[in-house]
């Protein structure tokens, strides 16, 4: 069964598609068509991708790597024509508003007919139907029944009331020079030191990233007490900020989900929070560990499912990564990377399914999509925690991390595409697919433009390479990935909470407007690619506090390819 056929069948099995099938048959075909299986072939990094011609502003990514960008179009012979832009726009308006446009001639015809026939004839028509009270009641009953079933079976909306990110204090700051001096003193192996310096130079991090107090010692002291101290510092700061912003009362929290991949003490971090804030005894608490950098969206997914099951509830989600216990003192290169990139951070998010919170909520959760490639051995061993030959425990990042990430991304957007792309993109894709299969296999594959589906992108700031790769694959401009790059520069890789720092950047720049759609993508060990789609419910005022408050005026900064150390 090839990929295209698989794509045809899979969406049809989902019930929303089935429901819509009855009413909008054309849509079903398009959904099937966007078996973005061809995205599989087109975005394969081994092939030369053909991104569309978009005006790119000050691209800080490694544009030198992107040789020979060629514009794509459904009709290649008009590729350099300016008029093509207007043709495209016209096409998009036509297809995306097809049904509304179709309604106009239908309404015109009906009203013409009415005018033509006259009111007298209409009364005659009505009486000929021989409608009496029982019939009316039956029809009414049927309508009420159907609409009740419809409203009751709709999923409860999940609102993001507000969120808060931990702002690291200046006392935890680690400049490059200090990091390198410590590396020289801790690692006897000269090669390890040079390797870390090369990584740091090209990492995209800035001079203000922060490590927890225990890591400022020579050598670092990763005791359990220090780890707990760090957890308390980051988590309680974030929750206190959130409480201040939203007026949340601890007794109102019904669901508590904490995700922290690499530090999992007993009692859990969620128990630590319950103890500190004196939460209710019948709270539903969960602690997710070992799920990597994409665990933030897994927690959101879990919260959403719980909020479907429990009406009128509030969920508090904490995403963090505790750095203290994970310092790697050995010499294995693949395990030294996390030392250079991971920094401290945490985010606290308040979700609610109460109707009255809709008024003050910032965002509504539209979709959460999770893709797990763990069935493949290569992907499973891609980010692997193990001991090296000397017995030091560390996280081994394999060399094919980027290609595995690309595969996982493809799978994820294969499923996401039909849900979010506008009709124009799906139709274009379907047409190109048909032409390629039937008429001319050499026709260039069409990559749907996700920029039409979303206004803002939050790409997990896992590292410069990840952001570069996604920018290339999704054909995003520098402004779209600015939030990710600047978060990496200011805060480093804060793991699962980085998405929230990026969102805060977008809000701090005043770019978030009502109705904007946001896409958060995260990758993590497993290998997983998770994404969430949010819709902005009210224009967000520029925050006066928060992690970006005193430095946003300095951003965006130009990040050189290689920083001279």
């Amino acid at each position, binding site marked *: 069964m090839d990929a295209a056929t698989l794509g045809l069948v899979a969406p049809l099995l989902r019930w929303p598609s089935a429901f819509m099938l009855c009413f909008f048959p054309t849509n079903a075909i398009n959904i099937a068509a966007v078996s973005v299986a061809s995205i599989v072939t087109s975005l394969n990094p081994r092939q030369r991708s053909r991104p569309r011609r978009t005006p790119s502003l000050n691209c800080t990514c490694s544009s030198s790597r992107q040789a020979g960008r060629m514009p794509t179009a459904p009709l290649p012979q008009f590729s350099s024509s300016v008029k093509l832009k207007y043709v495209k726009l016209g096409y998009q308006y036509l297809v995306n508003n097809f049904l509304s446009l179709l309604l106009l001639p239908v309404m015109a015809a009906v009203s013409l007919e009415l005018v033509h026939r006259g009111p007298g004839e209409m009364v005659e028509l009505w009486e000929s139907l021989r409608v009496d009270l029982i019939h009316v009641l039956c029809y009414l009953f049927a309508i009420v029944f159907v609409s009740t079933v419809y409203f009751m079976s709709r999923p409860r909306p999940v609102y993001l009331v507000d969120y808060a990110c931990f702002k690291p204090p*200046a*006392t935890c*700051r*680690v*400049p*490059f*020079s*200090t990091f390198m*001096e*410590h590396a*020289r003193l801790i690692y006897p192996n000269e090669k390890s030191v040079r390797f870390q310096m090369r990584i740091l130079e090209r990492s995209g991090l800035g*001079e*203000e990233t922060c490590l927890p*107090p225990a890591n*400022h*010692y*020579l050598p670092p*002291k990763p005791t359990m007490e220090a780890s707990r101290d760090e957890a308390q510092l980051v988590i309680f700061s974030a929750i206190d900020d959130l409480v201040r912003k939203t007026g949340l009362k601890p007794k109102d929290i019904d669901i508590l989900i904490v995700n922290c991949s690499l530090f999992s003490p007993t009692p859990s971090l969620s128990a630590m929070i319950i103890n500190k804030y004196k939460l209710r005894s019948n709270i539903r608490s969960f602690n997710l560990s070992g799920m990597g950098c994409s665990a933030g969206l897994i927690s959101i997914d879990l919260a959403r499912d719980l909020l479907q099951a429990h009406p009128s509830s509030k969920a508090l989600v904490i995403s963090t990564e505790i750095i203290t216990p994970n310092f790697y003192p050995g010499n294995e290169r693949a395990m030294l990377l996390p030392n250079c990139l991971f920094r401290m951070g945490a985010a606290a998010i308040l979700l609610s399914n109460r109707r009255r919170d809709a008024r003050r909520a910032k965002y509504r959760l539209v979709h959460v999509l999770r893709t797990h490639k763990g069935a493949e051995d290569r992907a499973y061993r891609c980010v692997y925690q193990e001991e090296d030959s000397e017995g030091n425990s560390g996280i081994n990042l394999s060399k094919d991390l980027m290609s595995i990430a690309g595969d996982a991304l493809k799978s994820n957007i294969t499923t996401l595409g039909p849900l979010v792309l506008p009709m124009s993109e799906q139709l274009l894709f379907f047409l190109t697919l048909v032409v390629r299969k039937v008429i001319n296999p050499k026709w260039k594959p069409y990559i749907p433009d996700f920029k039409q589906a979303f206004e803002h992108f939050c790409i997990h700031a896992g590292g410069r390479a990840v952001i570069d790769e996604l920018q290339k694959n999704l054909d995003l401009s520098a402004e779209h990935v600015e939030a990710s790059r600047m978060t990496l520069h200011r805060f480093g890789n804060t793991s699962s909470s980085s998405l929230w720092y990026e969102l805060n950047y977008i809000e701090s720049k005043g770019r978030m407007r009502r109705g904007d759609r946001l896409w958060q993508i995260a990758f993590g060990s497993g290998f997983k690619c998770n994404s969430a789609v949010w819709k902005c419910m009210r224009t967000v005022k520029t925050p006066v506090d928060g992690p970006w408050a005193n430095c946003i005026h300095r951003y965006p900064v130009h990040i050189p390819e290689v920083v001279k150390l």
Partner: protein
Amino acid sequence: MGVEQEKSAVYGHMFSTVVPGDVTGEAVVHELADMDLVTKLHYLRAVYYFSQSEVVDGLAITDLKRPMFPWLNVLYPLAGRIRRAEAGRPFIKCNDCGLRIVEASCSKTLEEWLDAEDDPRWGSLVPEKILGPELPFSPLVYIQFTRFKCGGMAIGYSWSHVLGDAASATNCINLWGDFLNGNDPPTKPFQLSNMQNTAQDYAPQKAPASVKQVEIANDCWLFPNACKMATHSFKVTETELDKVQKGQKLQFELIAALFWLCLSRIQSGKELKLATICRHGTQAKCSDMLSNNIRTSTVKLDSSAASVGLFRLANLIVEQDMDELESVEQLVDRNSGKPDFLLYGANLTFVDMRGINLFGLELKGQKPVKVDLSIDGVGDEGAVLVLPCPQRSDVTVMVILPEDQIPKLRRVLDSEFGIA
């Protein structure tokens, strides 16, 4: 008590680093003046003793470190590292690398420690580190916090003389105290830019006698002494001073002459005919400059100091007070700052430090009970530092001499002048 026993009484060393809170900026450089380069082989070591109290014992390491971040925002050269320009002249790259902080504990109580035999006692309370052999990775300043058994704390402060003189060093640490106590930050920022007149402006001078050029191997900025140096501090009270002064008002000069005399008596083989006098250029207490503002001059005698009388010697010190600054600068500039020089100990050196604010460091209102200040890296001829006391009329004299000379000196001073 042997040095080894003293050293083992201090245990549990933990090293960490403190950096400026804000990014200093890219390629910010603190140029080193000629006078700075002359002192680069010397290190100031100070220990501040604070007695047991709720305030002092209640200060956790985080409370002590937190004010250092805004402090280093003001004094960012302290957090820099030495680099060499292409021509070979050293400068400080302000790259926010930071200070080294040491935390330690002591198995003795503060009283036991202070009552114990003098000499090396302060040595284990302050890190005896030097710049080099890897200059780009050697911190310029170290601070050690040692907690005594049953309470009390010693703050050891190691300062590379290349950054500034004793006045600058004490003003900097006092500023840290201000930040700790929550005082307002200084209205006048520290003057950090250091360039003075270039020596090309001066008429050619002969080489100064106070500074000696030495050869240092491997970029290790410490002069290798021929013999082991040791220190001792003497307290000269008002009454003893009066006995010596007999109504004259030349406090520093008389003390210098007194020690010169005694040293020439105990050093029977050598004739101490040459001595260097160092004074601070500006009024030290009000100084808010990070610089080496030392006026050096040399006193040359025709015969041994022992044969010259005390008051005659003191008058000679006053008369031959010529500033050698220009000749020093020319000497350094002629070789574009590359060679190494020795200031303290090139000849027997007397340093007037009475004007520095030695007792200005306060921890939440509590002043230190004792402060020791010494210089490391002194040459074989030795140095005598005249330091202030909390009681204005007294002075403390810290001598840094070859080990074998100190007991003899003590005997002479005790027997003839009653100074202990």
